[in-house]
């Protein structure tokens, strides 16, 4: 490095604005450099993204926001969904959404159970393991749930009784971080849809 690297005097030519005492609003900047001439203040914009009361207004917006497009699936909320006894979960290979041969028998039994209870409404939840990426895993969970739904339909379950939702990697059944946990988490589960 040359001996002098930063020699430029700040060419400060400032514009005046009246300064008032500010509590938590705008940050006022004053140039105090030597050679700056008369002190003057520059106001920089208020940090509008900062106030917690502004950005955490979820409560207000939940009431005012309206779902403008479509209806959305009438899925049960995560808390209210309960596992349906008699319907067994199926599992998937990594990054796959095809039904495994060993799970075809499980789905056949599930289909029989459902057909004997035609009033049952079922939500098929698709899940992924924690590997991969959030958005891809959401799509993967959707594909898995749709695969199961289609398979059940081919076995004679009425499409109107089946709905799907994907949780991607966000709701693991097993909190572990090894192959066994991942294998348990790559799944489609059956919940009661009210």
């Amino acid at each position, binding site marked *: 490095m040359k001996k002098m690297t930063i020699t430029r005097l700040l060419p400060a030519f400032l514009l005046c604005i009246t300064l008032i005492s500010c509590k938590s609003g705008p940050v*006022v900047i004053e140039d105090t450099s030597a050679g700056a001439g008369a002190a003057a203040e520059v106001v920089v914009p208020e940090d509008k993204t900062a106030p917690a009361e502004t950005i955490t207004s979820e409560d207000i917006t939940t009431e005012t926001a309206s779902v403008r497009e479509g209806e959305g699936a009438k899925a049960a909320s995560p808390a209210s969904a309960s596992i349906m006894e008699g319907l067994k979960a199926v599992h998937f290979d990594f990054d796959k959404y095809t039904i495994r041969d060993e799970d075809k028998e499980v789905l056949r039994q599930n289909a029989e159970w459902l057909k004997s209870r035609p009033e049952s409404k079922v939500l098929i939840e698709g899940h992924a393991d924690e590997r991969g990426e959030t958005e891809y895993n959401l799509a993967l969970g959707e594909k898995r749930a749709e695969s199961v739904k289609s398979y059940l339909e081919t076995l004679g379950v009425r499409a109107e009784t089946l709905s799907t939702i994907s949780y991607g990697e966000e709701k693991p059944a097993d909190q572990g971080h090894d192959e066994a946990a991942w294998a348990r988490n790559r799944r489609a589960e059956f919940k009661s849809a009210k």
Partner: protein
Amino acid sequence: MRMRKIIPLIPFALLMWLPAEVIPAEKVYIDLSAPSVRRLPVAIDDFRESGGGKDKAQTELSQTVKSELKDALSGDLAFSNLFTIVENPPYPERPAAFDKESGGAAGVEWPLWRSAGADVLIKGSYRIEGEKLTVEVRMFDVVREKEILGKRYVGGAASRRRLVHYFADEIYMELTGRKGIFTTKMLFVTDRTGNKEIYLSDYDGKNARAVTRNGSINLSPQWAPDGKRVLYTSYKKGTPALYMLDLETGKDETVSARKGINIGGRFSPDGGSVALTLSTNKSPELHLLDLGKRELKRLTDNYAIDVSPTFSPDGKRMAFVSDMNGNPHIFVLDFYANSLKRLTFDGRYNSSPAWSPDGKKIAFSRSGEDGRFDIWVMESNGANPARLTSEGNNRNPSWSPDGRHIAFSSSSRGSSSLYIMDTEGGVLRKLETGPGNSKTPSWSPFLD
């Protein structure tokens, strides 16, 4: 001559509106385009409190302010990679070094700082009056024995770190002629409350606060080009739908809540449209939603998964992830040529592409046979992919608005944190975002 934009927030302020930043025509002291930049040795003196007596609570606040001002500035300067921070001399200089009348330089004991190995010295003082915090900071050229930059900031005591980030931006502009990123922000997902909520922090992860608080699952926050609105996916009404929150007004609206998934929304560079993945036709396909006309156009049509769009800065192309060839790879759609091109051919799993602000590169995440994910960067035509990380599982790269840094999530055995690094994988810095796991950072545009 440099001018600053004046924002008339005060009723009786003069309404002088001048052109935004005029870049100084003088020489740039640190040429960032040079192959290697020699770092300037800088000393940061402890901030001194000016002003008098106070009670115990004020003393505690004062000590917090004192240490945080220096901490924030040290963090900024180290991260800028323009400086090496040298140790302060073992003996403090005499007080009274700060003399406003003479421009601040009169009392500096130059030999003391030179002996510490500093070419540059930064000294600051602060004063707390009720809620008001005044900070004065000056930068000195120790070799030439003169002041280079001096600023006084006035703000709330809670905005102490932000005051210093403004100064770091000034230093960066002064030395390089370019805008700094120290006043930019980061959006991310954290599970600190037990639910997955969107949080907003300073670029360095500090001052994190909740953007959503709905107790459900909130994912994939993305900035609008205006730096005021956020797109995110949420289960707050039961199904994964896409919402847009205005950070200034708190207004939240549903962008898309169609049957199936409504995920991965990204604003087009002009802010007028949103690309997103919908599964209304069973297979997750990319769509483009015109926010003004509310018109929806389908962009992909296959039986595969198509997710994670990223626009080129000119808006003419869009890269995304698809498993249309079996496993996830990155493709690019050219809106004008109406063509589709595959960009990645290696790796088992390629995901989360992010187009660089200058349009030349795409950062992405890739795993090989060992299943571990790394951040890679390639040219926007797919050429010359280079790996930037080597440990942990690294995903979801997001470029700083100046294109000189990349934020990403890094996880290991279920514990996930945010990091930032330069575009060659150096100057790695873990962000202290607070408790819990943090993932999927989205780096803001410049916030003016």
